[in-house]
């Protein structure tokens, strides 16, 4: 009697094999997932480590520190304090402010152009375009994302800059508007693709309900479909913003690269990523300039991280409010 009881408790060989296989598969998938996370964390750690001398090394500390990077400095006695990025000079000046202003100006122009264009194109494609046209439109706009940014930068440098200067009469040929519009060419497909997917995923029943109440297609698209897809459209905008802040080659070629702290969009600008790309090749390894460039990398990292986190929290709130559990 006791023997049969033990017999029953012991797993059969096939059951045992199945359990081992399941455990092995789970372990592999977990490992792969962790590798992805580890890569992100390690990149951040190594970039941050190179920036650390700003705070720890007395050598680097002589050239710069947080206050000198973020506050206006009076470089000559008796002159008003100002922000200056002049890393290669007798007295190296590492103010982040002109770079921030430049990045924000270019990004603002890019988003101002690409959010309306991208979302409107997505709305048109999902709600109004006949099926044949939609099948052409979507891959065509997505193809824009496949153009290498150096080609777009070249186009901006040679063609776009001339056209815009002739139209608006900018004093500097390469400026925030030129770079921002060129940047928009890469941001539009990102916003378009993700928004279009979100809009298409809105259930047909919402559209039918709206139309059955006597709404026109426009009213249905703007007052029902777009709000219902808001979380996805917002995610698209955030992705586009991240793309726009991090894009290097286009702004390097089309922005003029003058680190100026002005609020005119017609002035040349220098952005954070373009600064890294332009200067990393000629810095002294381990010197102050080197550490500051890595510090810029950390800033870019933090920007996108904070932005994504805020956006994710906001999207969650919107979704919860829609679902009625808030």
């Amino acid at each position, binding site marked *: 009697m006791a023997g049969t009881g033990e017999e029953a408790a012991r797993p059969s060989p096939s059951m045992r094999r199945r359990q081992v296989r399941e455990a092995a598969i789970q372990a592999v998938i977990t490992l792969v997932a962790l590798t992805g996370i580890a890569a992100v964390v390690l990149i951040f750690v190594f970039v941050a480590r190179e920036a650390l001398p700003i705070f720890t090394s007395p050598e680097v500390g002589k050239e710069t520190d947080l206050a000198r990077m973020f506050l206006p400095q009076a470089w000559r006695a008796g002159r008003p304090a100002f922000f200056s990025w002049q890393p290669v000079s007798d007295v190296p000046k590492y103010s982040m402010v002109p770079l921030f202003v430049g990045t924000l100006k270019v990004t603002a122009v890019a988003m101002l152009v690409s959010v309306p264009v991208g979302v409107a194109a997505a709305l048109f494609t999902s709600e109004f375009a006949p099926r044949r046209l939609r099948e052409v439109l979507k891959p065509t706009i997505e193809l824009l994302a496949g153009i290498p940014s150096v080609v777009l930068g070249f186009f901006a440098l040679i063609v776009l800059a001339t056209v815009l200067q002739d139209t608006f009469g900018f004093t500097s040929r390469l400026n925030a508007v030129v770079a921002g519009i060129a940047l928009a060419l890469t941001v539009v497909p990102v916003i378009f693709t993700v928004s279009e997917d979100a809009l298409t995923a809105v259930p047909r029943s919402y559209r039918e*309900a*709206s139309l*059955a*109440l006597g709404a026109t297609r426009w009213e249905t698209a703007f*007052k029902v479909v777009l*709000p219902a897809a808001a979380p996805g459209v917002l995610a698209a905008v955030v992705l586009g913003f991240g793309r726009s802040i991090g894009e290097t080659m286009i702004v390097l070629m089309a922005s003029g690269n003058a680190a100026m702290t002005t609020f005119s969009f017609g002035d040349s600008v220098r952005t954070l990523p373009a600064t890294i790309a332009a200067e990393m090749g000629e810095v002294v390894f381990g010197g102050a300039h080197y550490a500051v460039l890595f510090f810029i990398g950390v800033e870019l990292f933090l920007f996108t991280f904070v932005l994504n986190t805020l956006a994710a929290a906001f999207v969650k709130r919107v979704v919860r409010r829609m679902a*009625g559990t808030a």
Partner: protein
Amino acid sequence: MTSIPHPAASAAKMETRRLEIRYGAKAAVKDVSLTLPDRQVTALIGPSGCGKSTFLRALNRMNDLIPGSSASGEILLDGRSIYAGHLDAVELRRRVGMVFQKSNPFPKSIFENVAYGLRIGGLSDRRELGERIERSLRSAALWDEVKDRLAESAMGLSGGQQQRLCIARALAVEPEVLLMDEPASALDPIATAKIEDLIHELKVRYTIAIVTHNMQQAARVSDQTAFFYMGELVEVGPTEQIFTTPRQQRTEDYVTGKFG
């Protein structure tokens, strides 16, 4: 027998004449001539795929949204063709409202759901909106359950409440005809009973057409019943007659449960 007024005694609110609806080459509804008497309930019954839902959706031109569909014959509202110049699909749908099989509230607040049709109709006065919304929710027998949570999302309501909200939303724009496509098929018996009670109350003011798979429901709520089979209208008559003494053998087989 005499408690139910004969449909013929009442004026026609909507009428189809030799209506045929095609999806591509396939005719889903063939040669249907049917009258919806004013302020009465017409039940459309028949097995799945018999064309009753397609017929219903033709009455407010919802089929226009389906690529490849076409209609011929006549559909009249108050004696005038719904395809004539005095009406477009938008105007028609304001007069002929619809409630769908699956409740489909917008992911907005309860208030905004009912307000939607009014707002697109150009009403923006906050006080009048409030009054119209309360009236609609009362008509849909939902007011007492939601009056303290109008600002909450409609998605948090139960299935039966959501369906009554959809009815309230349709009533808010004050249509003349209400089309209901199996409005209770996804609901439990208690919620179904509430919808049926509601239909009884609504027919005082609205002309109603309801598609249903449920024979008892058709018998309970309707004044007139139309039996569809394979896209054709087999028989139409006072509900009591259809369920007790149908003239056609196929009708009898269907209502007694021999097929379907």
